[in-house]
């Protein structure tokens, strides 16, 4: 078995240019470099539009895709759109094929070949993320590789949706394909298509989307060959390598400008997948000269559920963050990653054993993004070059939450699809001069969009009852965090459908505030089972359609609704819902920036009018006094209340030494620490 862990461990950093590549780079003058780099970026955009129009997965339709071009030896040269971690992880499967299959007579690499991979231990993320890649030849010369990837919403795992929350090992997670040739002469192999279709609950999506990715790759190949025709194949070799080399030097120079220092934070996730519990995700960032080390060695041990990851996935989510944020003005190439080093402990949930279930790694790793972005803000702030909103934004809400519905839909078709709008409507982080955007986007893909109600309702047996900003969702601060969205859906037009929910952030806040800003709040899942098959149309009997979780809770309390109400963890076993049942979930909220008492009272009133802040929070958290009929601010009383609060802080705050003595005697309850590891610092004997 040629599983090549050395290749995976090497990660995504580029190889040194060969002598031939150095000669080819000399053929690329600065003007052509600029023109053709841009042309390749546009080719990636074009490839994305093709996949979006052809794909079935709701995540493809929302733009959660990746399109990229690699050098002939598999280094990422350029990617311009979609989910960047897919493009980074494409590099390892390509290098695997080059190392193990080029000279293997039963496989080989030829023009028109189509390869596929969705296996994390061969360099991928988790198996719903399926990548198609193809070599690009000019005559007999291999000059590049192209790839198209996207998240598919079904893998044939033990629960529908490809991210089984109760998976105990890799064998519960469904179809996992190492780098595999799935087609020749630009055509998919019939027997492989049959294998794929036989492995998942939604065969139509599997075949359609694989074919769509081939089309997207083929267009990238065509665009590269157009440049070959005009400038020669050696030019393309030189261009692709030069992009990597130039970004590497730009990034190192940018890092050099950041003051040297050590920065630390710790975040927690409140689920292990199979059950609730705290796990620890610490980060120490050491910035020295032109390099940065991200040390996460004291994370909790691997958990028995699916909230685990491998180290290369940690690096991939960092790339996803860097390409969209700190390095968003340079080409997304492997050259960006040379300056960064990552440290984890094998056996921890960030560097799990090969047999581990990792399908919900993508819901654990946003905490890594959260921590890195927070510490970058603390590292960058003291440099005037970086003290700007575009560099100092807190991350999007980092509590991953998702819902998959599976069964026969209202058209009689078998479907398994994810309500992608939950993932793509997270609140944005606050900044030094502005609030976080409400319903800003998706942490892995700045280009992904929140689907319209009609898109979900056309393929799934549901009706949208509400989608509105989550009240008091954004972490309070001088600038508040962006609000996520509260969604309520009713099962309609089918007798039954299965509901799989996953996520965290119900007991512990996930997204950290900065410089006095508060973290994001928690939000649970709500399910209301009507329980009366003769009363499927209960909503029409109410005076008003419910528009929030609170309204449903109120109706049940008053006895106006009878049935089973569950408010609890976002991660649950798959459950069956019947027509007339309701479920509600909230996309992640983000965190605040600065002291809440420094917030402009006028902004609080605007938020109040918008419905993102409650009257309770306006008075009790923001300390704003106003007329609740006219919304007129009483500035004098507001300032008085805020001055009183500052004095109160000085009275109630304790000197650090005194506080720590009392604090360190405390400990969370045992149920919170079941999967935590050694308290308070797991793997404490490791340096």
């Amino acid at each position, binding site marked *: 078995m040629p599983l090549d862990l050395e290749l995976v461990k090497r990660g995504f950093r580029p190889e040194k240019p060969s002598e031939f590549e150095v000669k080819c780079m000399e053929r690329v003058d600065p003007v052509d470099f600029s023109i053709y780099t841009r042309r390749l970026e546009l080719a990636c955009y074009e490839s994305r539009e093709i996949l979006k129009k052809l794909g079935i997965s709701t995540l493809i339709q929302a733009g959660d895709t990746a399109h990229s071009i690699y050098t002939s030896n598999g280094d990422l040269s350029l990617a311009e759109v979609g989910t960047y971690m897919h493009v980074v992880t494409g590099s390892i499967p390509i290098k695997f094929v080059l190392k193990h299959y080029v000279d293997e007579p039963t496989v080989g690499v030829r023009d028109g070949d189509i390869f596929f991979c969705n296996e994390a231990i061969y360099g991928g993320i988790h198996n719903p993320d399926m990548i198609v890649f193809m070599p690009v030849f000019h005559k007999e010369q291999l000059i590049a590789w192209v790839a198209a990837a996207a998240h598919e919403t079904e893998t044939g795992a033990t629960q529908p949706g490809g991210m089984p929350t109760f998976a105990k090992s890799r064998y519960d997670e469904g179809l996992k394909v190492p780098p595999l040739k799935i087609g020749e002469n630009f055509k998919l192999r019939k027997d492989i298509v049959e294998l794929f279709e036989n492995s998942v609950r939604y065969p139509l999506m599997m075949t359609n989307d694989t074919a769509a990715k081939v089309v997207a790759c083929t267009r990238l190949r065509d665009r590269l060959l157009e440049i070959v025709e005009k400038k020669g194949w050696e030019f393309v070799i030189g261009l692709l390598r030069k992009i990597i080399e130039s970004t590497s030097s730009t990034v190192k120079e940018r890092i050099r400008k950041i003051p040297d220092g050590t920065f630390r934070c710790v975040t927690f996730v409140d689920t292990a997948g199979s059950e609730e519990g705290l796990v620890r995700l610490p980060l120490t960032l050491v910035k020295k000269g032109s390099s940065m080390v991200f040390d996460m060695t004291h994370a909790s041990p691997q958990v028995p559920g699916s909230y685990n990851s491998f180290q290369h996935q940690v690096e991939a989510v960092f790339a996803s963050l860097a390409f969209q944020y700190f390095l968003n003005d340079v080409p997304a190439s492997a050259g960006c990653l040379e300056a960064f080093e990552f440290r984890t402990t094998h056996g921890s949930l960030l560097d799990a054993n090969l047999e581990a279930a990792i399908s919900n790694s993508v819901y654990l790793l946003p905490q890594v993004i959260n921590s890195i972005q927070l510490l970058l803000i603390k590292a960058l702030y003291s440099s005037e070059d970086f003290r700007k909103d575009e560099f100092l934004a807190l991350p999007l809400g980092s509590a991953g939450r998702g819902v998959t519905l599976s069964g026969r839909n209202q058209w009689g078709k078998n479907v398994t699809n994810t309500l992608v709008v939950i993932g793509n409507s997270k609140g944005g982080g606050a900044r030094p001069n502005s609030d976080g955007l409400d319903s800003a986007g998706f942490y892995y893909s700045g280009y992904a969009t929140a689907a319209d109600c009609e898109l979900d309702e056309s393929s799934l047996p549901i009706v949208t009852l509400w989608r509105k900003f989550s009240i008091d969702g954004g972490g309070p601060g001088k600038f508040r965090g962006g609000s996520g969205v509260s969604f309520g859906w009713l099962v309609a037009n089918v007798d039954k459908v299965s509901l799989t929910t996953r996520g965290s952030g119900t007991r512990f806040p996930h997204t950290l505030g900065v410089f006095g800003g508060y973290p994001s709040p928690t*939000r649970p899942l709500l399910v209301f089972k009507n329980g009366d098959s003769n009363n499927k149309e209960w909503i029409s009997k109410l005076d008003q359609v419910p528009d929030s979780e*609170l309204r449903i809770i109120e109706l049940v309390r008053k006895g106006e609704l009878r049935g089973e109400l569950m408010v609890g963890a976002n991660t649950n076993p798959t459950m069956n819902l019947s027509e007339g049942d309701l479920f509600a979930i909230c996309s992640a909220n983000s965190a605040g920036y600065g002291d809440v008492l420094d917030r402009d009272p006028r902004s609080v009133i605007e938020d109040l009018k918008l419905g993102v802040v409650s009257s309770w929070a306006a008075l009790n958290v923001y300390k704003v006094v106003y007329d609740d009929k006219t919304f007129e601010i009483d500035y004098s009383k507001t300032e008085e209340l805020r001055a009183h609060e500052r004095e109160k*802080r000085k009275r*109630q705050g304790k000197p650090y030494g005194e506080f720590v003595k009392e604090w360190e005697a405390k400990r969370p309850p045992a149920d919170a620490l079941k999967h935590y590891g050694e308290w*308070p610092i797991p793997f404490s004997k490791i340096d």
Partner: protein
Amino acid sequence: MAIKVTEYLAVDLDKENWLCSKCNTIIGPARKNYKEGCLVYERDPREIFAPFIEGKHTFSPDPDWCRILEFYCPGCGTLMETEPLPPGHPISHDIELDLDKLKAT
């Protein structure tokens, strides 16, 4: 010379002290954790995020699992930083600048 390090913290490079950039109170030695010079308060998260309902999942963080530590300037009461932690978890030394390098540049 004082350099702004956060929204509310500055570092006086000559005297090697942390300062509150709002009221100029000396918070403490710049080679140590600035939090050691702050007043610290353990906030019940329900005072910031009001529970919507009773029970284990209230739409507010569980106070047995999470407390929000608040670090105040002892001079003006400004909330300089927050840190949500499980009760008893060690406090982070979040900012440790290389002062010698900073002085040399």
